[in-house]
């Protein structure tokens, strides 16, 4: 009888027993039909509504990288977003029939992802409250930061924003959406979006400027700076 070796589950981080030949056997990933892959957003939306069994794979191929990237940018490159991605696509399948303009499928997926970001941020905030803990303060000095550490410190700063402000900040600056797209994705007025964005930016700037290590790190990235 073959022995089982523990490997880490990427989704949960917990160990689980896996047959040793799993790596060798691998998993066959069927590609979607070329015909479906070439569908435009409107046609893809229609077959999603119709419940075509191949529609999910076509949508996944088209939007999964974008959704992954959005969520990674929202929660940090080190964060595990697989479950959130799955929830985004399950929500898409569940609510695609409410899409009034099939051509706006991409915007629809962005909106779902934006709401997922906001929901998850609220959930994490609530969990912090329940644990009676807050995001630990970033160490005042850490002279030898690399880019990965700098990004982690940036996300620590973002963790201290409210979920609404952080969602707006993420979509506008990290994801690079236009202001009007941010407001549409979150169902907010343009004025409210601007107000939240200004507030979030000001807080991030204030926090970042107090972090000497971050300031030094960015300073040394400037052209002409001494190594």
């Amino acid at each position: 009888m073959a022995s089982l070796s523990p490997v880490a589950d990427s989704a949960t981080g917990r160990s689980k027993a896996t047959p040793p030949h799993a790596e060798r056997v691998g998993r066959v990933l069927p590609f979607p039909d070329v015909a479906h892959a070439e569908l435009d957003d409107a046609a893809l939306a229609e077959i999603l509504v119709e419940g075509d069994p191949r529609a999910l794979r076509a949508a996944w191929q088209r939007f999964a990288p974008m959704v992954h990237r959005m969520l990674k940018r929202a929660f940090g490159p080190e964060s595990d977003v697989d479950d959130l991605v799955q929830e985004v696509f399950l929500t898409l399948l569940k609510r695609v029939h409410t899409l009034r303009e099939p051509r706006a499928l991409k915007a629809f997926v962005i909106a779902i992802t934006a709401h997922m970001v906001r929901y998850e941020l609220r959930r994490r905030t609530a969990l912090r409250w329940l644990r009676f803990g807050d995001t630990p303060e970033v160490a005042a000095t850490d002279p030898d930061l690399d880019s990965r550490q700098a990004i982690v410190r940036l996300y620590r700063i973002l963790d201290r924003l409210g979920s609404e402000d952080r969602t707006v900040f993420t979509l506008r600056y990290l994801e690079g959406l236009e202001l009007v797209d941010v407001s549409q994705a979150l169902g907010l007025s343009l004025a409210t979006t601007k107000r939240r964005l200004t507030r979030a930016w000001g807080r991030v700037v204030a926090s970042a400027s107090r972090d000497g290590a971050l300031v030094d790190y960015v300073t040394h990235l400037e052209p002409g700076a001494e190594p």
Partner: protein
Amino acid sequence: MTAQERPNADAIVDRLVELARDAPPEHLSAHERAGVHRIEQALLVRRRRGRALRIAGATALAAAALVLVLVPRLRDRPLTYEVANATISEGGYVATTDAEASLRFSDDSALEVARATRVRVSALVVHGARVLLEDGMLHARIHPAPRASWTLDAGPYVVHVTGTEFDLAWRAQDQTLDLRLIKGSVVVDGPLADAGVRVGAGQHLIANGRAGTLSLVDERNGHAAPGEAPSTIADAVPSESPAHPVAAPPLDAPGAGRSRPRVDAPSWKGRVAHGDFDGVVADAERMGLDKALAESTAADLAALADAARYARRQDLARRALLASRSRYPGSMPARDASFFLGGLAEGNGAAAERDEGAALDWYDVYLREDPHGAYASQALGRKMMLVQHRQGLDSARSIASEYLARFPDGPYAVAANKLLRSQ
């Protein structure tokens, strides 16, 4: 690098944001690409769970439908009842023993049946029962319910009940119904109550089918004189056959001595107000007239006088009025008594009893003792008429002028004007 050469704060955040934007790889890893399979599995699980839920839902619906079908059938079953201290014979007859019996119904209603009472549960329906009280007394506590329908038959009377508590006695020997409401209300049908008489809490209905009398007294507003309050409901019912105590509920009748409030017997005044004139006179006679006249309160003497006058017992009325004046001089009943004594002296239509001189004297007494009393206009008017009759127009004119001056709209104003105009 000097402080001046450092980038400003906005530029720092701009640079950090740029780093963060570029951090995620452009392409998905193999694991991330396999995410679609996890979604498909999740969908499969959800579909299975949905199917299980639908099956469970269908099962629950079927169970609910079964309940909806069965519950009304169960609910539509007639009431049942249990009996304590008695046996049930065919036809629902309750044979009581020496102790009081108790009937407990499945809707929480209860009947406490006095010993020697003949009662029968003649019908059981979904929301009530029909009970025949052949003779005796019971205490009923009917559980209030939206569609409760209880009926108690007592001789020719039918008591319709929804939810209430009351004592009910029926004495077949003298055809007397005695109903005392403790809570709620009932409607009684029967002789003299063809359209139904509503009896409310605190009210006491006594009906005598043989004599054709029916009185309803609100006992919350009335009170019995000390020493006169009957000790039981049955005692409050005038019995024409005291020799048949079997019909009279015992002193330890159901309900007696329990925590429910005791309701006093109706006062004579109350009974007179409800037309029970003969009953009041009979009560006084049962007490002994001398004793009644000597010991009754001023109010009861006045009520007895009224009852006697209405029952055309002029002699007793006169005695009661005189007793009132002698025992309670100066009181309002005593002052009023002089006016009524004047009326009695006029004979109230009976020429043989007419004593105009005495009547004039009593009217003068009244007008002197209570010139602004309730009967002043009538006393002066009667005096005017008597003087005209006895002494002529001239003597009466001055009284007529006085009358019109004092009571221009009084009942004798027309007569006074006519008298003044006549020559």
